[in-house]
């Protein structure tokens, strides 16, 4: 099993993760990324709503962290392309993201990410992306 401490350490060394304030959660081997509410992630103060970019940023970090786990932490994967669907307004609350690697090829990984707030069955955004990775052992 991948050592949880390694992913916690890796995330703590990424300045953008600190800026968004994301925190890893482990339930068994399942990895979830949590973004506690903070005012600096607000994009529309009148609604108020989280910035779409902050939600996307959370999902992009979740994808890279998940790939870090599946490739055994060799290096951070580089994004090739992402596609984000915004489904619901991001309320000023804690937000979660969980990534699934659908396919890991020799160089490219296909990852899908779901982001939700209070109800897992009501995602606020979904993403799929392709990443350039080091192949897992």
């Amino acid at each position, binding site marked *: 099993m991948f050592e949880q401490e390694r992913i916690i350490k890796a995330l703590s060394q990424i300045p953008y993760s600190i*800026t968004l304030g994301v925190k890893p959660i482990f339930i068994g081997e399942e990895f979830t990324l949590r973004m506690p509410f903070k005012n600096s992630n607000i994009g529309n103060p*009148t609604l108020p709503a989280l910035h*779409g970019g902050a939600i996307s940023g959370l999902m992009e970090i979740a994808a890279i962290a998940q790939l870090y786990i599946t490739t055994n932490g060799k290096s951070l994967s580089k994004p090739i392309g992402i596609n*984000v669907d915004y489904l619901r307004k991001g309320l000023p609350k804690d937000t979660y993201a969980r990534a699934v690697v659908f396919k890991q090829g020799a160089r490219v990984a296909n990852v899908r990410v779901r982001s939700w707030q209070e109800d897992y069955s009501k995602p606020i955004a979904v993403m799929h992306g392709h990443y350039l990775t080091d192949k897992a052992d």
Partner: protein
Amino acid sequence: MSENDYIQKLWEIGPSMAEHTPHGKELGIKFVAVDKGRATMSLPYNTELIGDPKTRVLHGGAVTTLLDQACGLAAIAGFDEPRMCATLNLSIDYMRAAEPGKTIIAQAHCYKATKHVAFLRAVAHDGDETDPVATAQATFMATSMLKKDIRNV
């Protein structure tokens, strides 16, 4: 609304979409320019947005946010009357890593706006737009709810 009033309104909205939103301010996004269906914003290099400590390259998420923001303003400017918008879909291709230390510029263009939906393309580069860092394709939905806000800006 006359063409002049419209453009003036857009220039009032522009900064409120960038440095005046908490997340835009946190990242350091700057409003550059706006015109009918077009918007430009920039993101000066910021060590707090690094995605890979080894290479010191900005995280893709920061580029995503800049492109989303520039597209959002171009979408507002794409309708016959400026209207607030929500992102429906944002698709980004990352061509290359942004060079550490350089400001990223995002230029967005609303090439079609229907009654409620705006279709956009955008490019992010660090000085030479023929050598993009990333390109984006996006769709935005006009939200009537926010139309009122705009008039109060």
